[in-house]
């Protein structure tokens, strides 16, 4: 690219020398001086770079950085929050005033408040979350990564006729948390990703699009653009000739990429907020068998990937400053823990599982770290091989998961299984069931657990679900 030579690597728009931990601690102090009984500050800083190359030409190039902070104040058992992107003295003064003014209109909630002082902490070991080298590539080579990914997809098959492009992204971020009970912590993290999204058309002109990606915290762990492009092409080509299938009840094999959404739904249903509201099909089921005895679901916020690098959901402390840890969600199909932040724990008379998630404004939420279903022993091919007639699902659509009732109904696409072999592509159908029953009807778990994001699952087979189609 003629333009590429002028692009500088590693430029940061946030190269200011401001010490964000000190800023956070100072803001806590200001809030206390303004009359808060407790205060907590979150600061986020991030830089991002992204390039998309489409049909061999740079389509978009984006590079920027930003920072913002949020303040949460307590007036006894009342609380409110404020956030801003203006980190000047004036902006900070307004945040304190805004939060204090709002705290005066809220009402007392006996369960609200910071965690107890002795609970705070941070994982001491290096979690390997930050690698400067995500910005190490010179500009032209970043563009080249995106171009190579797309080119590999376009070259893979003559039926690949169009493309949404190849992309390369890099980002670094810093999170800071400080509160009036003495906790101050911060950590940096890094990310790089390469992806491709090709389109294929069959002889009738029916188009299909799919894609693939690789992401990593350091460049050395990023898969080659060529392998990403080739896999994107394979996944797109296999959708060609898709047809509908009749309405029926057959075994369904969830590929690992879609199975992870089911594991995410289990976490959501086990979240303390849903439990104390009775807004979950798992409410009141602690200690009960809720799934097949082969199911072990773990949430590990301290995990390192096999490469020795921190997982995508790894952090030294949670959104309230409690040290990250590993929590068993399901053990042999038995619900072992509700997933809790401090508020939900107090509502349920329990202890936090250190799963507080955090935005800039508002109350802490509850979220997973590295959440996964432990692998079984069968290969995906063996699982498919045991199905006489069924559906291998490779993509899901829509929002048809009702955590309250467990009712599950989603659009799906994939491949038909006949006598243990993948045959033709399938589309425009739905799969439906109830999560409570689906978890009990998991009859096979694959050995193919790979973390491509913070939530991961091997391939699984579920019996008894309904396909609605032609």
């Amino acid at each position, binding site marked *: 690219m003629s333009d590429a030579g002028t692009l500088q690597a590693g430029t940061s728009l946030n190269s200011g020398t401001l010490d964000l931990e000190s800023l956070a601690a100072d803001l806590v102090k200001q809030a206390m001086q303004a009359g808060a009984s407790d205060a907590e500050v979150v600061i986020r800083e991030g830089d991002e770079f992204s390039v998309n190359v489409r049909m061999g030409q740079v389509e978009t190039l984006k590079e920027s950085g930003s920072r913002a902070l949020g303040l949460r104040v307590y007036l006894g058992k009342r609380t409110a929050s404020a956030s801003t992107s203006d980190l000047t003295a004036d902006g900070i003064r307004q945040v304190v005033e805004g939060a204090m003014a709002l705290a005066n209109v*809220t009402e007392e909630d006996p369960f609200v408040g910071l965690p107890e002082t002795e609970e705070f902490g941070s994982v001491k070991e290096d979690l390997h979350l930050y690698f400067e080298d995500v910005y190490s590539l010179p500009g032209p080579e970043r563009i080249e990564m995106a171009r190579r990914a797309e080119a590999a997809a376009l070259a893979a098959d003559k039926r690949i006729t169009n493309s949404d492009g190849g992309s390369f992204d890099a980002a670094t971020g810093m999170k800071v948390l400080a509160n009036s009970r003495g906790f101050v912590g911060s950590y940096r993290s890094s990310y790089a990703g390469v992806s491709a999204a090709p389109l294929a058309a069959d002889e009738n002109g029916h188009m299909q699009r799919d894609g693939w990606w690789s992401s990593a915290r350091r460049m050395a762990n990023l898969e080659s653009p060529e392998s990403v492009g080739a896999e994107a092409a394979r996944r797109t080509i296999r959708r060609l000739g898709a047809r509908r299938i009749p309405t029926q009840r057959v075994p369904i094999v969830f590929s690992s990429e879609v199975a992870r959404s089911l594991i995410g739904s289990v976490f959501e249903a086990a979240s303390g907020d849903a439990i104390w509201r009775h807004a979950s099909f798992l409410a009141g089921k602690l200690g009960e068998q809720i799934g097949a005895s082969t199911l072990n679901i773990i949430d590990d916020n301290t995990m390192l990937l096999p490469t020795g690098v921190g997982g995508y959901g790894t952090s030294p402390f949670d959104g309230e400053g409690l040290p990250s840890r590993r929590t068993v969600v399901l053990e042999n199909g038995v619900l072992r823990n509700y997933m809790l932040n401090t508020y939900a724990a107090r509502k349920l008379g329990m202890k936090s599982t250190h799963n507080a998630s955090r935005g800039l404004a508002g109350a802490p939420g509850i979220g997973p770290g590295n959440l996964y279903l432990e692998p079984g022993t069968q290969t995906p091919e063996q699982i498919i091989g045991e199905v006489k007639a069924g559906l291998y699902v490779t993509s899901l659509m829509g929002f*048809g998961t009702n955590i309250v009732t467990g009712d599950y109904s989603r659009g799906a696409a994939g491949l038909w299984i006949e006598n243990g072999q993948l045959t033709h592509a399938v589309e425009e159908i739905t799969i439906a069931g109830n999560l409570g029953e689906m978890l009990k009807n998991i009859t096979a778990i694959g050995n193919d657990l790979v973390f491509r994001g913070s939530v991961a699952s091997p391939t699984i087979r579920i019996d008894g*679900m309904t396909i609605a189609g032609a």
Partner: protein
Amino acid sequence: MNLPETSPRPSHRRYFFDKFGITERLLERCLGEALSAGGDYADLYFESVTSTSLGVDEQIVKSASTGTSTGCGIRVLSGERTGYAYTDNLNPDRLLHAAKTAALIAAGPAKQPIQGFTETRSGDLYPVPVGGFDLDLAARLELILRADRAARAYDNRVVQVRAGYSEELRRILVAGSDGSIASDTQPLCRLNVFVIAKDGQATTKGSAGGGGRAGLEQFTGSKSPEHLAQEAARGAILQLGAIPAPAGEMQVVLGPGWPGILLHEAVGHGLEADFNRKGTSAFSGLIGRPVASSKVTVVDNGTMQGRRGSLNVDDEGSPTQETVLIENGVLKGYLTDKLSSRLMGTANTGSGRRESYHCIPMPRMTNTYMLAGEDAPEDILRSVKHGLYAVNFGGGQVDITNGKFVFSASEAYMIEDGKITAPVKDATLIGNGPEALKYVSMVGNDLRLDEGIGTCGKDGQSVPVGVGMPTIKLDRMTVGGTGR
């Protein structure tokens, strides 16, 4: 400077000029820097958003938060390329640095600097608070407390109620290298109610909401806290007695209003020009061809007074308009922004939108709806022997390329021999965009727009939208339940 001193309506750009010291000279310098390496066009998008939200939960006002976010996104277009950079600091040196970064997309001689701006004429679709945005918190709290009381009073099986109110005031200023300057101040409010109902072992949820680009006076009638609360509670109670939804193809009647999400997913996204310019949409190349039954006319209209999807100007500073997408079943046009209209040689429909200054704008919908037909809703229901009547929905999604779309019914009933019978559990409906509307055999005379709750996501960017539809009958659609 070409701007008359007395503008017919308040010039919202004064906000950035007065509060952040932005001047026309600075805008010119930044645009000059943005085009310092060539390029066809550059623009500066200034945005300042102030938001406030309040929540009542378990009869306690538990939450209150406020936030402000200000920044500028700078874009350079060169052929089909876009360079983009943003800053949350509006100091001249940071703005010029961002302009320099965005300029890296182009490679050529600098463009002639621009001098002076002409203000874009735009509508006046929503009230704008004058002299700041001093909130009457008590009046806002009263809305959620009224909703909480009404939901609890609805039925003793209602065990949890949460009501939330949120509002934002978004100020924008867009200056383009074509000498255009546009500004707007956009209010947006929303009231939501969530209910959990419990009866024995069965637990269900219900929700309702309403809002728009208007003040508190809008929360009356069908958007009153009491009505929204009763709707949420009614939905939850109804689900307590729901039977499994059917599975398979059948006749489907969609009620008026929010079920218009069908149009948003089945055709709206597929008609956004970026996909069609690149030939990646299932609707690519279908202009002038039938894509729906002749009873179907669909428009996207950003100029409706006070509606959630409405805008005086889009996020590229272009006036919004009413765009006919499908007329009597024939595909008429796409939704375009500056880049796609230039590259495709078509008119700009004022559909360039973005979530915030962090984001590159792209063609998006505003308020998308189907025009009313001639059938009475009762006749439509009466005509169905066995089918599904769906009146409320959760979210939807579409695969632009193969046209497959889903939307999830949250309140639906069986129709037997022309009569509404048992309520059914949540079920996803699925169809194929360019085909689904060909099965529309009846269109009601009862066009209704939704209450102002829609948020549309595309490429990770969320923007508020509206939908609407009369009651319609589809002779064929796949219902994704578990029953027979």
